[in-house]
């Protein structure tokens, strides 16, 4: 199924407003409201005509000053029909996204990573806690309002400062 055919099928299946489908850069893309996301993903997986059996990726984009602030982006692939779909979901700060971990097993660690880096909560996720960072970490490092080089060391720095670093301080050079 080409991208245009796929988009037409999706529009036929979801005729209601609020669902924006287009072919963007040669790939089928759909903007879905958060309220319809759970049903939409279930249909995408279970209907044989779509047959998206491979959950490729989930990630998020932080736009900081836009409302809603975040975009959660899904990438789906069908090994049977060889077509792809990109789904964008606008999410406000403190808004929760329905989890797809029960539809695709592989979504479980990926959603944990999105929670770890962006702080977006997924309702219905069986084990939503940090996966890459340590539990002591405060904040979410890939948000745009996190300082890019703010570090939270696990061990305190008790060794004496190197003389080269002292010289950098005298000259006012930024020292991480």
């Amino acid at each position: 199924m080409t991208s245009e055919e796929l988009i037409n099928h999706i529009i036929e299946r979801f005729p209601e407003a609020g669902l924006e489908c287009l072919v963007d850069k040669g790939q089928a893309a759909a903007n879905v409201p958060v309220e319809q996301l759970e049903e939409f993903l279930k249909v995408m997986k279970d209907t044989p005509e779509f047959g998206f059996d491979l959950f490729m990726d989930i990630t998020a984009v932080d736009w900081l000053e836009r409302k809603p602030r975040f975009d959660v982006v899904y990438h789906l692939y069908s090994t049977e029909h060889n077509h792809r779909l990109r789904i964008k979901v606008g999410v406000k700060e403190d808004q929760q996204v329905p989890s797809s971990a029960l539809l695709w097993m592989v979504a479980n660690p990926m959603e944990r990573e999105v929670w770890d880096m962006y702080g977006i909560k997924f309702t219905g996720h069986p084990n939503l806690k940090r996966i890459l960072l340590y539990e002591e970490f405060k904040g979410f490092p890939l948000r745009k309002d996190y300082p890019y080089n703010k570090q939270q060391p696990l061990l305190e720095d008790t060794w004496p400062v190197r003389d080269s670093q002292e010289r950098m301080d005298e000259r006012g050079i930024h020292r991480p």
Partner: protein
Amino acid sequence: MRWQIKEKPPYQNALDRVLGWGRKYSIFMYPFVTACCGMEYMSVATAHYDIDRFGAGLPRFSPRQADVLMMVGTLNHKLSPVLLRIWEQMAEPKWCISFGACASVGGPYDNYAVVQGIDRIVPVDIYLPGCPPRPETVIDGLMKLQDKIQNQKQELFWKSKNRDV
């Protein structure tokens, strides 16, 4: 020259040199490899460059049997307690080589995850620059470490290099 302290008995000078000579040609390295610098370490360790010529050809993959910790690659904050524990497990005398730009100063990564130089965790004797270092750089650093071992004060009862002592 630290071995010329006056309180030492006259035989200490010769003993230091003999002990240093023995220790510098029997380096057992513990390669703590986390990133792409490991490829360069492997190429140094194999036959083409062959650090066995310097008596350092046999890496021990247990910190208790090693006496040079070689931190090869990027160190994250999450991994730093592991590095400290490995360093504390090594028996004296022990030395540390920081291999590559990431281990020395954090390299290109100035972000939330990467430790800006492993000398915040363990004391480092030799810094090898480069991203990754050429094998010649590694051999040069190894020879400088041998010089350091040869010329340092060889204490028979070693003061601990661990941070809590």
